[in-house]
């Protein structure tokens, strides 16, 4: 579950302040997917940053996976991200030196677990890569993968620790239409299978009909939108 209530986030901008998120509220129930659309600079990524515990808003209430995010220390926020939140970045933010399998294993490996735990991590990573359609690509590095394959690795990485919340920022922006549709289908399936609360930013309105809820962001203000009227808008 993601619950944002009356959230406002400002950034200092020289003399003045920019209001990136303006009294926004939203709820994403488990097993459902909410899409956010809006013009560039309207505050979509800022809203995702709030929901993924990357930044604290100026005011409002934020509950993610049952945790109250307001007033957490940086270390506590880091722990919430590690344990409850899966994040898929806008660009392919994979580490150039790591193979696909290592991209998924890296978080657990950094913690330096026991042999048995490491074997289990690798097994889970292998299964997740297979789940996103990358069986046989485990040992390829990012530069050896296509854009769509990299985005699949990103999605698999976000799911490694079985998060209850999935945050996805423009996952199809670097892909052609067909590849984009495949990625959206995959995210939808994973949301249903795993019961995650999924919050997705997209600029491609052709996906909207498949969403459970669509919100429009405009200058930081969030308004509801009828998914099925999307194409006309």
């Amino acid at each position, binding site marked *: 579950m993601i619950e944002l209530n009356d959230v406002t986030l400002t950034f200092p901008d020289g003399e003045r302040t920019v209001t990136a998120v303006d009294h926004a509220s939203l709820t994403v129930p488990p097993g459902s997917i909410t899409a956010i659309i809006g013009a560039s*600079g309207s505050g979509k*990524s*800022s809203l*995702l*940053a709030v929901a*993924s515990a*990357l*930044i604290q808003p100026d005011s409002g209430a934020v509950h993610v996976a049952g945790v109250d995010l307001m007033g957490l220390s940086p*270390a506590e926020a*880091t*722990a*919430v*991200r*590690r*344990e409850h*939140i899966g*994040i898929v*970045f*806008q*660009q392919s*933010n994979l*580490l*150039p*030196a*790591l193979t696909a399998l*290592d991209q998924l*294993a*890296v*978080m657990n*490996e*950094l*913690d*330096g677990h026991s042999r048995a735990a490491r074997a289990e991590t690798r097994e889970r990573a292998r299964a997740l890569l297979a789940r996103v359609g990358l069986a046989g690509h485990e040992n390829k*590095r990012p530069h050896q993968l296509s854009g769509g394959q990299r985005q699949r690795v990103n999605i698999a*990485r976000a799911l490694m620790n079985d998060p209850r919340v999935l945050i996805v*920022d*423009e996952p199809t922006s670097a892909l052609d239409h067909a590849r984009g549709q495949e990625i959206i289908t995959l995210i939808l399936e994973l949301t249903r299978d795993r019961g995650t609360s999924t919050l997705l930013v997209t600029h491609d309105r052709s996906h909207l009909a498949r969403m459970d809820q669509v919100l429009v962001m405009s200058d930081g203000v969030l308004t509801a939108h009828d998914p099925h009227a999307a194409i006309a808008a």
Partner: protein
Amino acid sequence: MFVAWREIRFARGRFVLIGSVVALITILVGFLTGLTAGLAGQNVSAVMGLGADRIVFSAPAHGESDPSFGDSSITPEQASTWSDAAGVNTAEPLGISQTRLSAGERRSPAALFGVSSAGTHTLLPEGVPGPHSGEIVLGTSVAKTLGVSTGATVGAFGLDLRVSAVIDDAWYAHSSVAWLTLPDWQEAMARGGQPAWATVLAVSLTDAAQPDAIDAAAHTASRAPLPALLSIESFRSEIGSLLLIVGMLFGISALVIGAFFTVWTIQRAPDIAVLKALGARTGRLVRDTLGQALVVLLAGVGVGMLATIGLGLLAGSAVPFVLSPATIALPALGLIILGLIGGAFALRPVLRSDPLAALGAPR
């Protein structure tokens, strides 16, 4: 170190490049340190080896604050004032002069050390029997230059002396030391037209001794052995510039290595931001990043140290070069610490940076 090792393997070229720079700097610093120690040793090793608690000079002339070996001259009265004073175990007169020894057609510079009595005494290197009247103990380099060995005769100021032993070189002001009895030294000085009784006293003291009071009574100036080294004129003039060069090299190395690892760490910044956004603990990221720097530093410094030792062994006979743990390991350790400081310096802003950057938000 999970990411660190994989990055090193992935970016092997970059790793080798930085490692080589570290190795070259290690060679440079190690070599210069060894050379400095070697040159210093050639100036002072004999004085260091005297085993005295204090070296007693005649009081410097008015207007000069520091005594010097070159100007010092001790009288028998001063010597007995010291040996009779409370808390003084022994006060051995030592005559020092620089000269040329001859054997047939051959000549060799040497530092003559005249020591008071034959038999056992503390001023010679351990286990070396002191010279009897008419005898001289040579260092190997002088013996080699003169082409003589034990039993041969060498001349000093027209005095013929029999070589009683050839021992490892002890050095004073870049000359190998030759030991003879104090009366023979006095005779040599007299023949050379510079009569003297002794140059300094090497004294051993108990805790009860009050060297300042004795100095006042005897009109002498005594110094602990280390400060006394500055009274060797050639050492005083050399050591300052050598230490300046070593210090500057260290400063430059610090900047180069620090800058290298700052850059090395900064190029990891985007990856660190991603890992942080995914929820990696800060401590793990620090360990991974500094661990990686340490691997590069250890490899580079290790290779550099081996090369320095190799070069040192080659150069050892041609130039004064000291290979010792102090001249090899200390500079190496210094470089490793400097590199880590450089890495840590770069890591601070990286760790404080906003993981938001990883989301591709416009900033």
